[in-house]
């Protein structure tokens, strides 16, 4: 029989998640999660010892993600992203299909070089500026917006450093960054490619063939400046952009080169952000204050509180339930481990968001006493479920929720029904392609 305290635990967890997704009066998502976590600690579901353990697991990945956000704040301040939007329009050469390819490529590379949430925060306003500038109708702009969010979010799967939930789970399961990439890069890229092809096929009739761009003196007019006053364009410092993108790439590379020597990822990320701020100070004499002020430090509390909630569920017996239900199936072989964990995390993510889902899945895997190879495969399938399978509904990831929030801010109406009518055709296929590729890739390399 389920005891009263367990019901309390599930009730606090459910309420915290519902309020986090709902965000009444636009409250920060950290507030309900932090209140829920505090209640759980006060009620004694999570001990002080557990809290110390949680802090050591969560702090590093949170700071790593924050460092990439700091980098994007610096770049935003020097006009980096406005310049990208301007270039995309010019390079599209009046072709809607070319614009579609460029926006998808931008979303993919932004997640690769920064992180999924940061990518959404930056690319969605860029796409909105472009579609507004081109005066596209709703059926014409939906392909750009929906494929952008799906590609940007799914692109966090190939490398672990593009997503906070991947990093936290990586730390729990004890896998290093290079081993992760060796196994995950190819299968998830196959999945993303399949997703992009499907999206193009679905949207092929809605993407405008011609964009109807105006030209002035033989040149495409600028999205951010009046054609008669190209002063903002003249202020662009391409040299600074070149230096900045080199620092971003070097920091990404350093994650993989330096982490095997025991250097924590967060140190590398924060050092990269510091270098970028120093360059800006040197070139433009702008201090660090705006970056420190705009960085969403609450992510630290959010990730910590979310893990406290999940730990409470674990202590209340959810893990035991998952283990007793799925362990037998997962233990059979790598195929069963891949499919079971991938689908389980997909279902969990679409019910209560992928961050708690991936934490619950990873904690359950570590307690199943699995063979190391099967455990790591199950964990990676768990990540595919959380990064790709979670895209089925807008609540699946924080990135899609942020995307919905930005659209609302710009008065662009994309209903849940419209979103799901597309994802229901794309996400299950991309998920199964990724999971099956993971299984085949493991057979090939192990």
């Amino acid at each position, binding site marked *: 029989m389920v005891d009263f305290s367990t019901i309390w635990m599930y009730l606090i967890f459910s309420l915290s998640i519902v309020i986090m997704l709902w965000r009444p009066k636009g409250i920060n998502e950290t507030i309900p999660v932090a209140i829920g976590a505090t209640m759980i600690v006060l009620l004694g579901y999570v001990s002080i010892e557990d809290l110390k353990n949680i802090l050591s697991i969560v702090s590093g990945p949170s700071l790593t993600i924050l460092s990439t956000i700091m980098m994007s704040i610096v770049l935003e301040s020097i006009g*980096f992203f406005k*310049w*990208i939007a*301007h*270039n*995309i329009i*010019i*390079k599209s050469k009046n072709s809607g299909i070319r614009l579609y390819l*460029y926006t998808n*490529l*931008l979303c993919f*590379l932004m997640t*690769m*070089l920064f992180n999924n949430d940061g990518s959404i925060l930056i690319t969605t306003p860029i796409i909105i500026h472009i579609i507004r500038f081109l005066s596209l109708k709703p059926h014409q702009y939906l392909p750009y917006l929906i494929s952008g969010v799906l590609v940007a979010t799914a692109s966090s799967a190939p*490398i672990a450093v593009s997503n906070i939930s991947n990093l936290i789970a990586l730390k729990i399961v004890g896998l290093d960054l*290079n081993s992760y*990439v060796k196994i995950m890069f190819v299968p998830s890229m196959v999945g993303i490619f399949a997703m992009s092809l499907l999206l193009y096929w679905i949207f092929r009739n809605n993407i405008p063939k011609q964009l109807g761009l105006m030209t002035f003196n033989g*040149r495409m007019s600028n999205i951010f400046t009046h054609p008669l006053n190209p002063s903002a*364009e*003249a*202020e*662009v*410092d*391409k040299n600074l*952009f*070149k230096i900045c*993108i*080199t620092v*971003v*790439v070097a920091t*990404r*590379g350093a*994650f*993989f*080169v330096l982490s095997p020597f025991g250097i924590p990822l967060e140190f590398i990320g924060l050092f990269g952000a510091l270098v970028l701020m120093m360059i800006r100070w040197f070139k433009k004499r702008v201090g660090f204050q705006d970056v420190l002020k705009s960085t969403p430090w609450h992510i630290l509390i959010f990730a910590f509180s979310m893990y406290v909630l999940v730990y409470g569920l674990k202590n209340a017996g959810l893990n035991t339930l998952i283990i007793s239900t799925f362990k037998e199936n997962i233990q059979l072989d790598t195929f069963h481990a891949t499919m079971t964990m991938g689908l389980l995390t997909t279902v969990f993510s679409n019910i209560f968001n992928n961050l708690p889902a991936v934490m619950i899945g990873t904690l359950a895997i570590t307690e199943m006493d699995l063979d190391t190879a099967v455990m790591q495969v199950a964990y990676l399938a768990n990540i595919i479920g959380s990064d790709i399978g979670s895209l089925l509904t807008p609540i699946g990831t924080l990135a899609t929720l942020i995307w919905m929030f930005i659209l609302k801010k710009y008065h662009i109406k994309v209903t849940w029904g419209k979103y799901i009518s597309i994802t229901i055709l794309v996400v299950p296929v991309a998920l199964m392609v990724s999971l099956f590729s993971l299984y085949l890739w493991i057979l090939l390399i192990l």
Partner: protein
Amino acid sequence: MMLLYFSIAGFLFYKVFLNSPSPTKEEAVVETKQSTFEQSKAAV
């Protein structure tokens, strides 16, 4: 290998999204020995 991968990704990013034929700070300034007034006078 990942360093090479990111170098390619960074290069692609620069080439596609940052490098444009439009004038930059340096290119926007056209150096000439004649003043605008002298140029106009010569044209007339």
